[in-house]
């Protein structure tokens, strides 16, 4: 059997999993505060605009975090579907990876419009 090309999907999954672990809990905490009605100063329109609007590095960093997290979740969800008994792996993989790519492209487009 030929060597697999799985690293193409696994490597970004591993990177994304690390990114999720380090960044998503605190970001989720911040938006939870918003949901509870306490918008932190940095998350107001002016606050977000101030550090994102003209800084390409900041936009790339946010894009990196969002894209890798989306990919990692998509890959894990693909494996989870298989574990739950959903055996059409190729279909599930295609749907989930395309969804992650589309959402990442959208994030990129939005970021560069800010």
């Amino acid at each position, binding site marked *: *059997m030929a060597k697999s090309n799985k690293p193409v999907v696994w*490597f970004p999954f591993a990177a994304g999993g690390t990114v999720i672990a380090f960044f998503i809990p605190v970001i989720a905490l911040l938006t939870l505060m918003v949901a509870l009605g306490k918008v932190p100063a940095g998350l107001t329109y002016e606050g977000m605009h101030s550090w994102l609007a003209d800084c390409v590095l900041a936009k790339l960093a946010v894009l990196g975090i969002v894209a890798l997290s989306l990919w990692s979740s998509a890959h894990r969800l693909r494996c989870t579907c298989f574990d739950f008994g959903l055996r059409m792996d190729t279909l599930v993989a295609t749907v989930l990876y395309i969804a992650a790519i589309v959402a990442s492209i959208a994030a990129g487009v939005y970021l560069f419009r800010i």
Partner: protein
Amino acid sequence: MKERVIQLEVFRYNPDTDTEGHYQHYEVSCLEEWVVLDALNKVKETLDPTLNFRWSCHMAVCGSCGMMINGEPKLACHTFLRNYPGTIRVEPLVHFPVERDLVTAPDDFMEKLKRVKPYIIRKQKQPIEQGEYKQTPKELLRFRQYAMCINCTLCYAACPEYGLTKHFIGPAALALAHRYNQDSRDQGRDERQEVVATKEGIWECTFVGACSEVCPVHVDPASALQQMKIASSFDWIKEHLLPGGGK
């Protein structure tokens, strides 16, 4: 020495007469410090000589007596009766076909073990006159843990991916491939990668970690598998993205 009456529910299957398995109840008087294997032997000697099971060393080095004990893959010689106050359910290791009673057919594992080439491979043999292959303690440490494997296949019984996908090469065979890859005397990693870095090799693993949890000799096959995934990913980048395939 204190005795205790042990209740056993043991899986039985006779290929000559049965189409499915069933459980047989035994009540046997055992000494407190005995293991499940001792209880099974007492059943065989005094109650039911037709009960079949594999065992040999009685000290967790031969790997023969792997069984499901109350739903957990364990070595029967390594499972103490004092930790089981109630009825003890004994079944053959899951994910393997049952030959008879508690005896499984490990053919699939044996074939996969052969496939990963678990032996030193040299591109160039060192002539005898040059003496032995020398190895420092540091070099030994790189693979020593993975060399401890006793081929008991408890990890195959624990691995849900092996249970769901029979083509998976499995924890022990892959950990042994890693053991040789890490050995400083070996030059065969490229050959093994053709077998190991495939869909049925390391990439079937989703890092459940059950294999390492049940291993009686602490091989930690899960760590071997993740290390191979990382190394294979870097290999893939070298082969596909660097000019000349990184050679």
